[in-house]
């Protein structure tokens, strides 16, 4: 089990990913919105300590819907399982923007500024995703890593988060999982990378998925 904590400078926060999280996709926000993003970035990012924990376990694709990680059967369903050909191991992870960021965001909320709340929320999402990118970059073992997949996405039942958490120590990185599978701090991520010598990394699944009702396609 590997656990790390790190901080980033405001300039290291990928601005375009924040814009994307705010719904801009390929568009660029107007100058005023960009300035607000920078102001909040400078205020919130120095407060954040990002944390992640991961482990590499034996993995096996059991069927078009199911996999086994470390002896436990998961059901990520067909969309995800279709990308797992050649998987022999999995990198199971939990990452978080951390309690410090959560508290800074809550303090901002007391100022009753919905624009700032929205931007802060998007910054938090990007910070949480940065832990996943850090793990991916850090991995230098054999084989190819797939894209990361998480319970709650691509038809994978979010309740399986409990099963995933059962493979980690209690409160990994300080993250608490509620009965309804809600992680706190709110800006936390969990999931797995498939790993295998013959595994082929597929394009990001939204680009090839045909689920027209997925909320990832919605705006606002």
């Amino acid at each position, binding site marked *: 089990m590997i656990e790390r904590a790190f901080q980033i400078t405001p300039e290291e926060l990928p601005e375009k990913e924040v814009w994307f999280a*705010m719904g801009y996709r390929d568009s660029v926000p107007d100058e005023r919105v960009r300035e607000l993003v920078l102001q909040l970035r400078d205020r919130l990012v120095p407060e954040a300590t990002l944390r992640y924990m991961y482990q590499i376990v034996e993995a096996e694709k059991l069927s078009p819907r199911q996999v086994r990680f470390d002896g436990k059967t998961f059901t990520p369903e067909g969309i995800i399982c279709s990308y797992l050909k050649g998987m022999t191991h999995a990198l199971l992870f939990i990452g978080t923007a951390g309690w410090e960021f959560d508290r800074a965001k809550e303090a901002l909320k007391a100022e009753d500024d919905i624009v700032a709340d929205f931007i802060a929320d998007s910054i938090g999402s990007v910070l949480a995703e940065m832990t996943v990118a850090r793990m991916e970059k850090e991995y230098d073992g054999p084989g190819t890593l797939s894209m990361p997949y998480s319970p709650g996405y691509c038809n994978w039942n979010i309740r399986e988060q409990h099963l995933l958490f059962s493979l980690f120590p209690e409160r990994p990185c300080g993250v608490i999982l509620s009965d309804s599978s809600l992680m706190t701090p709110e800006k936390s991520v969990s999931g797995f990378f498939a790993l295998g010598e013959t595994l082929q990394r597929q394009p990001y699944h939204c680009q090839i998925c045909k689920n027209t009702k997925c909320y990832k396609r919605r705006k606002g």
Partner: protein
Amino acid sequence: MNPLYDAIFKGMAPLAKTAVQASLDEGKSPQDIIDESMIPAMEAIGKEFEAGRVFVPNLLLSARAMKTALDILKPLMLAEQTTTLGTVVIGTVKGDLHDIGKNLVASMLEGRGFQVINLGTDVSKERFIEAAKEHNADIIAMSALLTTTMDYMKEVVDAVKADGLNVKTMIGGAPVTAEFAASIGADGFSTNANEAVEVAKKLLS
């Protein structure tokens, strides 16, 4: 040329504050100011959003400017007969603490002329019903981000029906679909904050 309309459309809160005071100084009534400048500006920015020409932050900037102006008008409106489109009790359902989307909807509803009672997050069915009765609400609006918590929306809808409360229910949130809304007997459903206003208006028409 309507400086208040422009200030709200462009999301300029300080200008909205100045412009609303200027309108009052001209002798306009608060209700006329809202009806003639503020709500049309919010409707216009909503249409821009639907057309993909502006984004969520622009909606929020306009909603913030609208709120700034409303904060000036509200104390003056207590003394006179005012009209709203209706009263909406809104909250994120029990078990769920996500509130950004719900607050966005609340702001847009308020900006377009609804009275909004925002109950926050982790709201039980009892609390929804209690607040709806207390404020004589027309609509209960529920939000959920998780598939595990969206099922609680059905419990709220069922509780409202069992109580015999004369109130419409509408739902929204990332995992919610029109099919789900229909399956639990909700009266309305929307995929974004701007559309939520149109759904609410339709429910009360």
